[in-house]
């Protein structure tokens, strides 16, 4: 399987939601053998199957893929939204320690965010996903890596810094969701009910436009509960782009100040 075939399995051309699938991880696939060892299927008996509910899976690393696969088994279309690039070539030995680069802990990965495990997981589940024959309009399950913003361990110069954030513009609009029968969005995190601060911008926009937001942490039991997402800091703010130092997008089309740009400015 090559990267085009792998991406086509996870983002088939006929799916309504494939346009939003992120290709970053897939672009780094070189036909490696899947190293991922999947956990047993995760319980999804509490997930609404009304076809009017989209799901955001915000779980750490490969667990997001595993839960996405569990949702695919009950009719959801997993849509990978991973923005982190795997390190293209990891050294078997850590970089040379020096004043700017303290030695890494023996357990610290070179990648700050473990995107390689995500790559292995999408490859490992590809054959199974291919066999599902999901309809083109199957409700979406957007898959995020909950560790995207911080990764693991200190970000020292000798590490590959692949941290990322998600944006409201990484998702379809509330109008688009509605046009495909989606009236509710269910947020699934490991233990929190409220979305992470970057994701909150997208979720709050949906909420403002009439989408019901549900939440059900994976570690809890019971049915999803409706939540109210408070305005995140600098929601729709003009100044977010001025004040943020790391991890937010400069592109006016993908950020939060998109009311103000003029003429034909794009990416630099």
């Amino acid at each position, binding site marked *: 399987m090559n990267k085009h075939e792998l991406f086509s399995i996870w983002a088939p051309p006929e799916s309504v939601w494939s*346009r939003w699938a992120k290709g970053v991880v897939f672009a780094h696939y070189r036909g490696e053998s899947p190293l991922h060892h999947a956990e047993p299927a995760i319980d999804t008996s509490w997930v609404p199957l009304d076809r009017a509910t989209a799901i955001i899976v915000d779980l750490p690393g490969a667990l997001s893929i595993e839960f996405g696969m569990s949702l695919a088994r009950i009719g959801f279309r997993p849509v990978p939204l991973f923005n982190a690039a795997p390190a293209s070539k990891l050294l078997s030995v850590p970089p040379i320690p020096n004043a700017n680069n303290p030695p890494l802990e023996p357990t610290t990965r070179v990648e700050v965010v473990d995107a390689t495990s995500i790559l292995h997981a999408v490859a490992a589940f590809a054959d199974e996903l291919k066999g599902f024959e999901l309809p083109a309009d199957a409700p979406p399950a957007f898959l995020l890596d909950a560790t995207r913003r911080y990764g693991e361990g200190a970000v020292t110069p000798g590490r590959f810094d692949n941290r990322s954030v998600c944006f409201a513009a990484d998702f379809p609009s509330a109008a688009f969701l509605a046009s495909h029968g989606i009236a509710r969005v269910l947020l699934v995190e490991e233990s929190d009910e409220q979305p992470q601060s970057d994701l909150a911008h997208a979720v709050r926009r949906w909420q403002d436009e009439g989408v019901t937001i549900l939440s059900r942490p994976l570690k809890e039991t019971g049915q999803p509960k409706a939540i109210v997402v408070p305005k995140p800091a600098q929601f729709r703010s003009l100044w977010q782009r001025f004040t943020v130092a790391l991890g937010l997008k400069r592109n006016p089309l993908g950020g939060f100040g998109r009311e103000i740009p003029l003429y034909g400015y794009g990416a630099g």
Partner: protein
Amino acid sequence: MTITHPIGAEILAPPALRAAGAISPQVFDSIRRRMVLDYCKWDSQIGDVTTLADFPLILSADAWNELVARSEAATGELLDAEDELLNRPELFADLGIPRAVRRALEKSGCKAVSRSPRIMRFDFHLTAEGWRASEVNSDVPGGYTESSMFTNLMADQFPNCSPVGDPARVWCDLLANRAGDGVVALLSAPGYLEDFQIVSFLRQRLDERGVRAFTARPEQLIATGRQFHLNQPEYQGPLGLVLRFYQAEWLPRARGDWRALFGRGDTPVVNPPTAVLTESKRLAVIFDRLKSPMATWRNILPTTRDPREVNWRDDEWILKTAYCNTGDTVAMRDRLTARQWRTIERDVWWHPRSWIAQKRFEATSIDSPAGRIFPCIGVYTIDGISAGIYGRFAANPLVDHSAVDVAVLVEKPEMAVA
């Protein structure tokens, strides 16, 4: 003014710019996937909008020749201005250059650096009065994969047309030549995927040329004597070239010895950080204080003033910051809420030297398969020679969520309308 498709045999000259028809959805989907997976175009969907157009824009040969002449003349003027400004540190503050960068420039001795290799991009808009430039990206212009790979893939579908150039090929040839046998560090800011995709794309292209290149962030550079070394997971050692896709005005945010980039060491840094001088949108504010005449610039740039000199609250003006790299800080009163406008007002009041006021101009729209669109033609110059086009359009004169990258082609001479 509206440009329409030529209809009928009486039309003797093609319009300066028109849109061709859309290609089939299947072919376009294939191109889009190649862009994502093979050519590092990782932001091809923004909200509900696919940011690659399924049709090209066709530029007339005459229009291209005009843009070439203007871009190349403007490049020469900017480089002359840059050399002059290096010896005019008293103007640095008026350019709105951040204090830490000003100090780094002054400490570096303000000596001219090599002009090669050097890339810039001029963003032109069609207006009733002809082509107008809204800005130059003279520090870290992007758009390479769209202007090269996407444009080439789209050109394959239009045998009567061809790209005007391949900026990525020319740029990477020059970078490879300058790096020689050395290793290249490709600097970008972590967390900015749209920048990382650009350095990843350049890395691919350099790899094709046999050049070892590694993506990095400024903290991973180590200045040792007159040479830069890289300390990155994949490579630790001396560098032959540093490619900076990290805006000069952002450098003070970086930890580590970013000031060394302003030095005059043996490792070339491209674009040189001195580009911060001409990247400033406030350059136009000090035109009259320069010895360089800047004749082309004065002609193609809308009237630009220090906000303290004009009534910028009038709707005929727009505001933007001195280092408005992507349009993210362009402000038009009628596009903002009252609260946002008050915020802008306060900042302009307190920090006028961080802003410019620029006269609005009426951009011309054209018909296209996507409806009426407002194109922006970004012309690259590499070492002073025009090298290709990065095309974009929006559904209105403002670039908002509807902005899209578009291939810009010219008709092959034998195919052009007589």
